[in-house]
């Protein structure tokens, strides 16, 4: 009897603590009504995509591995956007035009402004990230961000 209670006391709570992050969302999304996204972020994303289409080189069909790690899964949209927004900062370069960099910054900073996330990004994941200098990766990332935002807005309309 004493051994059984000991397991329940010291075994289950840690298990709960480990499982909770899997099911719960880490980020609160403030702009779920879509006004900020439609009137500001989407304009900058489309501007960036249009610029990349004009200067586009042949991009491979396969998706970079780094980007494959994170997806806009259910209940994880906020976290995905958080990570994607932080990734966008890596694409800000001196070689780009001022407007291009400003749009990148607007999408990144604006997304982060709308999210209220507890930073789960540890140093290990940051170190593992490589600077994505390819415009192809940026294009894919922007498309994913766009898709994820649409998913969030659709979900909010249904509710």
């Amino acid at each position: 009897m004493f051994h059984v209670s000991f397991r329940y006391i010291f075994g289950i709570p840690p298990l709960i603590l480990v499982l909770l992050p899997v099911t719960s969302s880490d980020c609160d999304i403030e702009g779920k009504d879509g006004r900020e996204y439609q009137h500001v972020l989407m304009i900058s994303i489309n501007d960036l995509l249009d610029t990349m289409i004009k200067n586009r080189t042949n991009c491979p069909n396969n998706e970079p591995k780094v980007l494959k790690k994170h997806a806009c899964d259910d209940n994880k949209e906020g976290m995905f956007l958080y990570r994607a927004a932080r990734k966008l900062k890596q694409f800000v370069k001196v070689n780009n035009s001022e407007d291009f960099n400003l749009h990148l910054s607007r999408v990144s900073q604006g997304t982060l402004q709308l999210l209220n996330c507890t930073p789960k990004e540890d140093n290990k994941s940051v170190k593992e990230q490589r600077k994505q200098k390819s415009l192809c990766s940026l294009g894919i990332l922007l498309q994913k961000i766009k898709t994820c935002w649409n998913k969030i807005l659709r979900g909010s309309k249904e509710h």
Partner: protein
Amino acid sequence: MTILGTAFGMVFYLLQAVSGESGYAQNGEFEDAELDDYSFSCYSQLEVDGTQHLLTCAFDDPDVNSTNLEFEICGALLNVKCLTFDKLQEMYFIKTKKFLLIGDSEIHVKLGGKNITSKKLNIVEIVKPEAPFDIRVIYRKGANDFLVTFNTSHSQKKYVKELMHEVAYRQEKNENDWMHVNLSSTKLTLLQRKLQPDAMYEIKVRSIPNANYFQGFWSEWSPTFHFRTPEITGGKMDPVLLTISILSFFSVALMVILACALWKKRIKPIVWPSLPDHKKTLEQLCKKPKKNLNVSFNPESFLDCQIHKVDGIQARDEAESFLQDTSPSQLDESEKRRLGGGMQGPTWPSEHAAITPKAFRGDSPFGCLAGSISMCEALVQPSSRSPDCGESGKNGPHVYQGLLLGPGTTNSTVPTPSPFQSGILTLNPTAQGQPVLTSLGSSQEEAYVTMSSFYQNQ
């Protein structure tokens, strides 16, 4: 105890004096005045110059000494923490692309690096659009309305694209009597009937963000456009139509009056001819143009006429010779010889009286010639009264009493005239000396004189 209480009281008093709280009205007033002096208001204009945005701030009190004052904006900026305003006269502005357009910013008023006052605002909520331009008014004659069009630079912008416009128009002579119309598009239709004709109007327009995400203030008014409403074009056409309608009305009225007036005399006899009345027809036939002629078959009207007895034998012979004679010309000549000289004066009736009974074949001298008479007359009264020659005259129509030979040869029965019956048959006055007896000279077919033929001749 008392010493202790006094000591505490003094300490509190000193504390109050040193702290300088609101007990001193002079200081309090000075501090309140400082806050009011530096109140300011701002407005933003997005994409005013390409992709650059403009933020403009100014103090509400124009008397503020802004010599060493600075404006600074912090928050909701891209890649920077704060930006400093530029100063132009009494206005502070900043022109940059680095507005995030999401979230609140804070604007600080600084004096010598020291923050005097601050204000929290959202740049997307203080947007002032650019004034519309190129306002035009086109009159559409077919639609009887005015098409108002104008242009705005925001149709080409990325962020503030949806605006609400306000069109204001008034008649130039009516000051402060503006009519306002709100619309979201850049076209407006004004109905002509709602405007005064032949009047001068002025019109202007301004814009405001439609409050979907971007909010703010009204823009400046566009330049005023003047236009004149046309005169009523229907007036030009009306006189013509009016004239035509009046003429047609009067013509119709005249026709109606004439129809009513001439109905009985002219129109009805043609449309609905009446059946001939024998007596009246005869009277009409015997009607002579002379006014004083008394035409009547009433025997009393012949009281003044001299009636001569007719020689029956002579008359019969004459009639027989007439009937046997087939050439109408000879007969006409013979008739003319007999009747030519004696057709005047009172002796004429006697001669005629001699002629007519001959055809009677021994019947009553006052009878009618059988077979050749289609019209029969009554007898003559055996009186020797002289006829009323004043009435007949020499050239006037001749009055026959007794029998009259008709051109036809029918064996119709002839009614026996009574001795006191008399009938008057007036001759055709058109040919002098050629009474109806000349019809004896015509063919036998023409000898029949029916009532209807008399009526038709009349």
